[in-house]
């Protein structure tokens, strides 16, 4: 009993990629199981945790909620696409220096949310940062060192914390 597979083509981390997939496979399954790239994590499979966040055409999406066939013709980026020639991407550098990694299971998703945010908006304010990362659950860090690292990646001071910045945002509105 062989199921019909569907050919899909997309640009993955800058490289043309062609793969035959099952119609019911999620983008996450395509990336992890068909392409064997394990950087993107599965924490819930139902769009609640953000561990599977990838970038599709510049937007951060939950790969577990997307069908693999929807990747066809898209520009896709996963955590493996961040570092170049063994050199960490500046966002990764800031996470490292900012002690934003504990168990690290949320890290790839958070990096991709941050990368997508900076692609859309190189100078996000604190409220926009919180918005951008609030779909990514982290059970270890309490987000404060992550938040400071994202700030640092945007070229802002790495001081400050989530709520103060929400407050200052509220005051500004």
């Amino acid at each position, binding site marked *: 009993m062989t199921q019909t597979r569907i050919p899909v083509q997309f640009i993955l981390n800058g490289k043309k990629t062609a793969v035959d997939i099952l119609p019911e496979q999620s983008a996450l399954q395509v990336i992890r199981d068909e392409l064997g790239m*394990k*950087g993107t*994590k599965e924490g819930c499979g139902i769009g609640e945790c953000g561990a599977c966040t990838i970038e599709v055409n510049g937007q951060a999406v939950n790969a577990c909620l997307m069908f693999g066939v929807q990747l066809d013709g898209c520009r896709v980026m996963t955590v493996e696409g961040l570092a170049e020639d063994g050199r960490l991407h500046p966002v990764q550098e800031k996470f490292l220096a900012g002690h934003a990694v504990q*168990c690290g*299971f949320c890290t790839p998703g958070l990096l991709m949310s941050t990368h997508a945010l900076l692609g859309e908006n190189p100078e996000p304010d604190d409220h926009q940062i919180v918005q951008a990362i609030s779909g*990514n659950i982290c*059970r270890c860090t309490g987000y404060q060192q992550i938040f400071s690292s994202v700030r640092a990646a945007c070229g802002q001071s790495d001081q400050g*914390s989530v*709520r103060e910045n929400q407050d200052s945002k509220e005051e500004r509105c």
Partner: protein
Amino acid sequence: MSNDRYHTVGKSILRRGAKERLTGNPIFCADMEPENALYLKAVRSRHPHAGILGIDVSSAMSVPGVVQVFTAKDIPGKNLMGIINKDQPLLAEDKVRSLADPVALVAARTPGAADLAAAAVSVDYDPLPAVFDPEEAMAQDAPQIHAKGNVMVQKKVCRGDVTAAFDKAHTIIEKTYRTSAIEHTYLEPDAGIGFPDEDGTLVIYASTQNPHYDHKEVVSLLGVEDHAVRIIQAATGGGFGSKLDMNVQGFIGLALYHLKQPVRYVYTREEAFLATAKRHPFVIHMKTGADETGRITAMQMKAVCNTGAYGSYGIAVASRAAVHATGPYAIDNVNLECTAVYTNHPFCGAMRGFGTPQMALAHESQMDLHARALNMDPLEIRVLNGVKKGTVTATGQVLTDSVGFQDCLTAVQPEYEKAMKGWLSEPTPAYIRRGVGIGGMWYGIGNTGVQNPSTARVAMDREGQVTLFTGCADIGQGSTTVLSQIAGEALGLDAMDIHVVVADTKYTTNAGATSASRQTYISGNAVKQAADKLADVLLTEAVNYLKIRKSDLRLENGRVFDSRHPEKQVAFSRLAPRILDKGGELSWQGYFDPETVPLHPDTGEGIPYSTYAFACHAACVEVDVLTGETSVCRVIAAHDVGKAIHPENVIGQICGGVAMGVGFALMEEFVPGETISMNDYHIPTAADMPCVIPIIVEASEPSGPFGAKGVGEPALIPTAPAIINAVTHALGKRIYALPASLERVLDASIASGHFNNCYQES
């Protein structure tokens, strides 16, 4: 102690293993795919309580792709697990005690086949009456869950004369508190893989907090020799206590034993929710008496906690709850009792704090109630009652060193006063009420009144390269980095220059569980002892080589030098072969077991821990009196950690603990049968987080490595009580049950009249 005198201790060096995580390396079990691995799937009970009359696996076996279906009779060794009391079968034999109980295990070539076959296993159940409420389960005629009866354990601590003290008390306050079951929700669902290696050893990679315990347990399940099983801790995506139990390890061991073929088992989030431990829900009846100055003179506490179908760490939870009931306060007359009861609830086990967070809700609420009754400031009443050097605890232990509770209170005071004076009086919309609350805590480091040693090995090779071997599982808290710093400090090396071999039962020796906030203190000491021994051998050889007396020699950057004439020096790489050629030893074992005295079974008298961590949090909240929404704006969190070996790691623990405390206080509740997935269980996101102001207090612990104690669990404990006290402050009405959900806060708002006042105005 200033960090200047240290080479690497006290410095926030880059974390070991962070790069692999940042680049998405396949280091978690779910990322590993041994070739031709079979997929495992447990068949779980359909009843919370039922006898098993028979299991028919024939139709499951005929599902294409199925290789084997195992039941209890396939377990060659002892079909019982549990780190403290062995009461939990890997696969159910004659009965199931909760919906999570596994009755059979399928091994199949594809995940789809495994699922189909699991559904096709037919079990003939004889349903039994079930009981979920622990107080009901204590009744004479309650359904019996285990043959020994439903009361698993009762722990008592008594001292002084409670009755006389209550008679003399000026104010007596008696209340009942309730807390919810909590799901750990570590981000990585439990997972493991296994394969037989060339010599037939069954190798299991697991997401675990205690690989050496897993090893013992798998060996006992399979009835094989120690060397037949090797457990390696894979990268572990958080644990918080739940990965102290055997989750997939036993299943993998069983399938490997029979099939001699690679296998993998990755829980879905739903299975992780269903099948793994929860935080014990508590009902706490607490009565305290104070004199007219606000000094608490007596406490009576009776708690019942629901351990569900199995014990797991329940006994430790009960004894820790009893010992910690007084909070960090000197109370001379106490009568404390905690009972852990079996029910048909999914089993409860260890979760960050082992009953202490539940107890803190009670003692911190009582503190505020007494303060209010006597018109005292909440901080003032804590200063008055707070433990100090010389305080005798409820178990009769005299606190002699590293008692930093008062320092923590002092540390939060400026921010607390600013909030009370300035922030509270800032104008807010009419429907928002602000409140400020305090929470204090103490936490004994390590296991309660029992031996819990750690071992470690530090070895140097001929070239002078140092390797640290430790069985300590780093589950994200950063222990590998901290232990390397401790070894590095003893040897004058950068932490990163030390190779590490971590949590692999073939090469490492037992370091005990990554739990009870014990690894920095206990494994840290074991590592330090091993490294000190190696350092001493190097120094002794350097005396020979340099002809300079030992007391003038120092170790730094891979060499030994004369502190008075630094140019007189010799590299480790020169010393190592000289030592080896003389038949000397360059591989040293360290061992540390904190000094404790077992608690007396009737009075609880003894020395449960050799040191305690202390903390105080102040929380600033805003409550929307019309919706019941509470938003935590700020948490000032002062922690006495003895010595912060890695300050940014400590801050990471504090902030992470506060986040978990926010969840415990306001939103988290696991309801069996209703909480199925992350859809139904919400934990704090970045948008829910307050600004956390961590303050590190260092009341050096003489028996700790460089003065260190621990911080992992303490980080969470004071947050929820501080938030509840702040919500009470905002509304003038107290909430006695966690979580303080929208509904509960709204009820309090209505009961306090704020809802009506505001509603009528608008």
